[in-house]
């Protein structure tokens, strides 16, 4: 398989005005300025193959959007090299933009004052989309995303969910090879999120579109991505299939046990680890490789009086939290 995106040792630095505080400070600022260099991304490298669905995860300010903006040709990296579809995006923005689709969750690429229909019409001309392909894609989007419900409404009057559906359709109208999604489900309700996930899954499967998704919503990642790249303070701290993430970091299961009475500690069962308590309830961690759930439960019931018990598999959100937890 050949990689469609290559990122090699990319670093992007921003100069931030440090600014002094107070009245005297602001006067001094007029004459001399102190700059502080911030590394938004720091020496990151990865490759993405055609047809992959990659989750790009990190806390606010970890450098997710910066990477996306470099790959879409909007930002120039301070050092390093990136290639998208054989094109260096920041050297040839226009050429690159013909083969990619981009959705920024926080802003619309549609024309605010124009009805949805006219925005699509403009995009058809911008990307020189042939009539039959345009018709075919529109039918698909009408079918799945139901964008025809508000075809004649100006974009500014759409709800967030409606707008996002339109933006997604707009980004895929020209059959791009790669789709960049920067927090596409931000602020959406559960039903709208679900619709969008289904749609993305289909696009990835049927058209073999490579999709890179940044999000804070780990449910998005769990539902969609096969591979996850985790970014922390501008560095890649994890880049593996989602299954590896679960196996390596999700090695611990959680038991939620409610006891009949309050116990100071559970030291008669040394295999377990209590990490949270609430009245008579305790949350217990144990290694899934060393012990079976049955053996742990029977050991607890032998020594203590229990009222209720339930078992949780770790979800991606917990795992990512653990990874961050290990870093600090």
């Amino acid at each position, binding site marked *: 398989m050949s990689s469609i995106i290559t990122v090699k040792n990319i670093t992007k630095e921003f100069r931030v005005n440090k600014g002094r505080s107070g009245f005297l400070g602001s006067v001094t600022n007029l004459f001399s300025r102190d700059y502080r260099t911030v590394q938004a991304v720091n020496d990151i490298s990865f490759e993405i193959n055609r047809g992959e669905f990659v989750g790009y995860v990190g806390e606010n300010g970890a450098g997710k*959007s*910066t990477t996306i903006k470099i790959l879409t*040709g909007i*930002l120039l990296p301070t050092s390093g090299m990136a290639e998208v579809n054989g094109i260096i995006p920041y050297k040839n*923005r226009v050429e690159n*933009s013909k083969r990619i689709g981009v959705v920024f969750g926080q*802003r619309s690429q549609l024309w605010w*004052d124009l009805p949805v229909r006219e925005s699509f*019409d403009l995009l058809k001309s911008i990307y020189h989309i042939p009539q039959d392909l345009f018709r075919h894609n529109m039918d698909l989007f009408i079918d799945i995303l139901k964008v025809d419900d508000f075809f004649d409404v100006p974009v500014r009057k759409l709800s967030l969910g409606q707008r996002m559906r339109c933006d997604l359709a707009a980004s895929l109208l020209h059959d791009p090879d790669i789709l960049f999604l920067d927090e596409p489900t931000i602020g959406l309700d559960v039903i709208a999120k679900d619709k969008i996930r289904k749609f993305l899954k289909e696009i990835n499967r049927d058209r073999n579109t490579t999709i890179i998704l940044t999000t804070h919503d780990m449910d998005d990642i769990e539902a969609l991505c096969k591979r996850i790249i985790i970014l922390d303070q501008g560095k890649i701290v994890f880049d593996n299939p989602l299954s590896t993430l679960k196996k390596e970091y999700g090695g611990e299961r959680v038991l939620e046990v409610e006891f009949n009475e309050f116990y100071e500690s559970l030291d008669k069962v040394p295999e377990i680890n209590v990490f949270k308590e609430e009245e008579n309830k305790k949350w217990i961690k144990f290694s899934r490789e060393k012990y079976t759930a049955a053996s742990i439960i029977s050991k607890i019931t032998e020594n203590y009086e229990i009222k209720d018990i339930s078992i949780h598999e770790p979800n991606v959100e917990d795992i990512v939290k653990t990874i961050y937890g290990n870093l600090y």
Partner: protein
Amino acid sequence: MEIYIKFISKSFQKQITYKIEYFVGFINGFLYIFVFTSLWNALYAEYDANAFKSGFTKSSIITYAVFVMIIKISFSMDDQITTRKVRTGDLVTDLIKPVSYFCITLSECIGQTIFHFLARGLPILALSLFIFDISFPINVTNYLLLIVSATFGYLILFMINYIIGLMAFWFFDTFSFQLMKYGMYAVFSGGVVPVDFFPASLQSIVDFLPFKYILYIPTCIFLGRFDEDEVITALIGQICWVALLFAISKITWIRAMRKLVIQGG
């Protein structure tokens, strides 16, 4: 090319939706003409035309006042487009598309100008014909020269706005630049008083600025105030300014792209 024509037509359509703005603009434009023609009438009634040494008779100055204002009204455009997009970060949505930012902004402005010409410029001109004593040029050449010269003038105005807009990459607020432009454009363009009336020292400054090429030159060429040599010099002057401003626009854009930090990175 097709896409930019579409942008022009969409921008034109957008203007139609702002009905109240339109009526206010119409009344405003007509009021300006009324005030300035009244002023000139009063001045020329009080003083002998020779006292001004500008070569304008009462009839020709009224004609000038009407036409310069018709051009100015037609040249109305949104000069905040780029500043707004840089400040909100919405510029990215243009950058992810395979289009030239310069060209789509120009298209948007042209759409606005076509609207202002048809919906405000022409009706106000028609109204003025009834009220004021205006002498029309009858030569076809004048109209052709007007189209050429007004196009250059328009490009000069657009690029000044565009470059000031791009300043938003370096300065938090471009308002002070805009304010300076408004002042210079209002006075030095000949939009209020023809450049001929300026004292010699001021005229020599105005000669080195682009503003008189926006309104004064097209109006004078149209009204046949220049002889052949003057027309050629004026057009060359316009072409030089268009070329220079285009070069500055390009350089500023390239530097701005290097400077680019989109909000929410």
